């Protein structure tokens, strides 16, 4: 990251700025000429409906717009620019061939309302992707519709509800989650109208099975488990956990956020899970898009199949693909979004899977695990390790020692920025004090892993002798630390002319 670059805005803005706002760049009368005409339309709109409110969108020339967004882009850290070790986010390299595939006119220029016979290529791709993900996850059926992991969680818990109700079992009101769970798990359960019970983890970072058994009962809808969990640890008694839930009549949801560790290593369908979602924007290399889109295909066992959302993509005996609707699946939970899924994202995931093939996916899982364990070996000693076990694809350090010395996890994160790295996930999972959750992925070369470890060790040494020196970090980023409290106290959520 380079130092601060100040632009002369030439406007009355009170505050110095890295890049002026569109609204500060605009001048009345400036415009491109992207579309023109249609003036006869004004007479066709009844005056009672016509816009009287002004339309104060900025007026800009195309060169200004290009420079504005180019400048903004230059203020961002990205996977294209460097290592992005965010735990549980799997920020691996995003192959460019995937983007090109998604932009082929046959994929980008087709409308979801087109008749099936005009979109056989798209439907074939989706059908094949369903089959591939079923094989990878060890499940029987797949819906590609969920837009993200949380959307898949919501879909599955609603399917759990429908499953229990179909058996006349209507008293189940509680969903259990471990204390290491992603926040989306309890939030998804709540959206389905259920109460949430949290169970603690044991000393080895597993679900405390006694606590789980004590929490189970005939009012339990199911249990949501991330495996490997958010500590990067494989659940050592995963089958026992699943059996206990099943014995109580509940279902087991697999949060597949950490599926990258399982590629070719183990399949959730072979471990006792009733379903699992896959974040293709993590495991299958689709770009995270500064926050989205993702896609969260949901893979389920046979007993959940009747409840899958519509429309479903099927193939008939003659090799013709089509979308099936509620009339063909009366027990379906219904539609969870307008169309068949985040297709452009799914095209990228399909391209990635076909590029790597079985042998490439196997190598991916193993390399991800190797990289995490290697990095942990380099950092052990400089930082406390939350759980002393071999992790899978990610691990959690604690900056508790550094906190005692006078600098906390946030300081370390910001100091890493000055070292040229994006920080890891901090303060999550909640059960580890001063957590630093690190996931290197399989696409960072050994030299980068070494450099990252060196940077973290340098920071630890600085804190030993001069903890105050990281309190002001970052100093080499475009901005210094931002005042989040002020932002929330007096929200300024949009531009307003002064």
């Amino acid at each position: 990251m380079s130092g601060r670059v100040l632009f002369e805005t030439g406007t009355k803005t009170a505050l110095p700025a890295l890049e002026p706002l569109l609204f500060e760049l605009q001048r009345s009368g400036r415009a491109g000429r992207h579309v023109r005409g249609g003036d006869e339309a004004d007479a066709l709109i009844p005056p009672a409906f016509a816009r009287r409110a002004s339309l104060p969108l900025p007026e800009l020339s195309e060169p200004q717009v290009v420079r504005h967004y180019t400048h903004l882009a230059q203020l961002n850290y990205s996977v294209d620019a460097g290592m992005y070790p965010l735990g549980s986010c799997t920020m691996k390299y995003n192959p460019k061939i995937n983007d090109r595939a998604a932009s082929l006119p046959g994929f980008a220029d087709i409308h979801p309302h087109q008749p099936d016979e005009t979109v056989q290529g798209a439907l074939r791709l989706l059908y094949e992707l369903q089959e591939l993900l079923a094989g990878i996850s060890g499940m029987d059926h797949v819906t590609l519709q969920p837009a993200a992991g949380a959307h898949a969680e919501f879909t599955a818990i609603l399917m759990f509800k429908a499953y229990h109700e179909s058996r006349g079992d209507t008293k189940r009101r509680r969903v259990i989650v471990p204390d290491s769970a992603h926040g989306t798990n309890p939030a998804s359960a709540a959206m389905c109208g259920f109460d949430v019970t949290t169970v603690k983890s044991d000393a080895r970072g597993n679900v405390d099975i006694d606590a789980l058994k004590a929490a189970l009962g005939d009012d339990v809808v199911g249990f949501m488990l991330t495996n490997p969990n958010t500590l990067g640890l494989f659940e050592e008694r995963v089958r026992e956990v699943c059996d206990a839930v099943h014995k109580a009549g509940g279902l087991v949801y697999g949060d597949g956020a950490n599926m990258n560790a399982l590629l070719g290593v183990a399949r959730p369908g072979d471990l006792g899970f009733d379903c699992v979602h896959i974040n293709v924007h993590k495991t299958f290399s689709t770009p995270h898009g500064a926050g989205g889109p993702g896609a969260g295909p949901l893979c389920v066992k046979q007993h959940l199949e009747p409840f899958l959302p519509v429309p479903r993509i099927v193939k008939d005996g003659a090799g013709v693909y089509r979308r099936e609707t509620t009339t063909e699946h009366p027990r379906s939970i219904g539609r969870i979004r307008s169309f068949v899924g985040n297709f452009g994202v799914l095209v990228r995931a399909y391209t990635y899977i076909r590029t790597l093939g079985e042998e490439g996916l196997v190598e991916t899982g193993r390399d991800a695990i190797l990289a995490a364990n290697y990095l942990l070996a380099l950092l052990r000693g400089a930082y406390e390790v939350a759980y002393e076990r071999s992790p899978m694809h990610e691990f959690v350090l604690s900056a508790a020692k550094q906190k005692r010395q006078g600098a906390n996890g946030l300081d370390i994160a910001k100091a890493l920025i000055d070292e040229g790295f994006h920080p890891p996930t901090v303060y999550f999972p909640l059960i580890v004090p001063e957590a630093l959750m690190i996931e290197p992925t399989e696409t960072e070369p050994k030299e980068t892993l070494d450099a990252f470890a060196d940077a973290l060790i340098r920071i630890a040494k600085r804190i030993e002798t001069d903890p105050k020196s990281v309190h002001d970090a970052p100093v080499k980023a475009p901005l210094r630390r931002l005042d989040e409290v002020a932002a929330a106290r007096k929200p300024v959520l949009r531009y307003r002319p002064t």
Partner: protein
Amino acid sequence: MGQNPYSPHTDADRAAMLARIGIKSVDELLEAVPKDARGPAMGVPAGLSELEVQAHMERIAALDRTASAGPFFIGGPVQRRYIPAAVPVLALRGEFLTAYTPYQPEVSQGTLQAIWEYQSLLSELLAMDVVNSSMYEGSTAVAEAALMAVRLTGRKRVVVANEVFSQFRQTLATYAKGPELEVVAVPTRELAANATDAACLIVQHPDAFGTLVDVRAVADAAHAAGGLCVQVTEPHANALLEPPGALGVDIVVGEGQPLGIPLSFGGPHLGIMGCRDALVRQMPGRIVGQTVDASGTRGFVNTLQTREQHIRREKATSNICTNEAIAAITASVYLSLMGPASLRAAARIGVARAHALATRLARLPDVSIGPAPFFDRFALRTPLGGELRTALLADGILVGEGIGLHYTGCGDGVTIQCTELTTEADVDALVAAVERMTARRPVAAS
């Protein structure tokens, strides 16, 4: 080894890493995995070179009939519109596309400012106080708006117009199953009469058939009964029609795809959601706010995060985490380039084409159009009903879904959408085809 083309590791690297860990094989790290489950076959075909995979993808893509390949009148929430050349060039830059959610604002100002500008641009377009940083797509935005209204009013009854896009209503019905809400569907003209005990009235304007609706009357009825008014909108209509914020609407939602985002068979798209200031703390999704850094320079951060799942867990306003940020940035670039003039022009051309087309079709025997007044989309009713869609497909002309199949109490027919990409030749082709097809039918059939 060497099977993943994106892996940088040489065998020597791997050996050095194993040695540093103090093990001989990765297998030693997998002790916790049940033995009989280890190393499963996944059934994935062998990997391909980039050249091979490109050819494979081109072959599959070639099986689809693209929207641009001939006369195209499909629309609704997803619209084929002109995308200025600079839109993908800017919005899909690697610095935006391969960034994560801006959890570290000091190195994410590009994303944060672009999204804050998106919120500002949409607020201006919709004349709404606040717009969030995006929902998944239009239908989930509608469902989340209903849940928001339920939280705000403490009521569990949601009234939605039949003339709201059918897929939007269906997603709403699914989301309602969780908290067991009562969803009542009525014709738009009966919304006001059903306001009693409703958390919200959900009205679409222009509606699924392009018809213009008196939203203010709906909002007044909702408010008189102590409920909220949710309007489903579409972006371009707001360039010419009075916006939701001027109509008394409390929550506005819609599909943002027409703002420079490709059709992509229905996704990824952009869920628009905005509301009045007073309601913002019950709004789902991320919101970017302005602040300053330690040296007083303006900057942007994710804010009001105590609404969100990573802080509030089961008490959050929604479970949404990953959203459609790059689509919001795309929309922002699109609106910056188009400005008020080109945006109005695009909207006007659609309106003008739709009305010219409707006028010509209405002259044909047994053909009816409407109801009027409509915007850039209308219902076309002929003796063929929804079957007209299939008949026209044989001529290479694509029109919207059959109405009878997807809408209750709205008769049968097809919807016809026009945009700035609809040409005179497309219009001629459709008129000629409908004339031929309706003329074929014996007059006695009526």
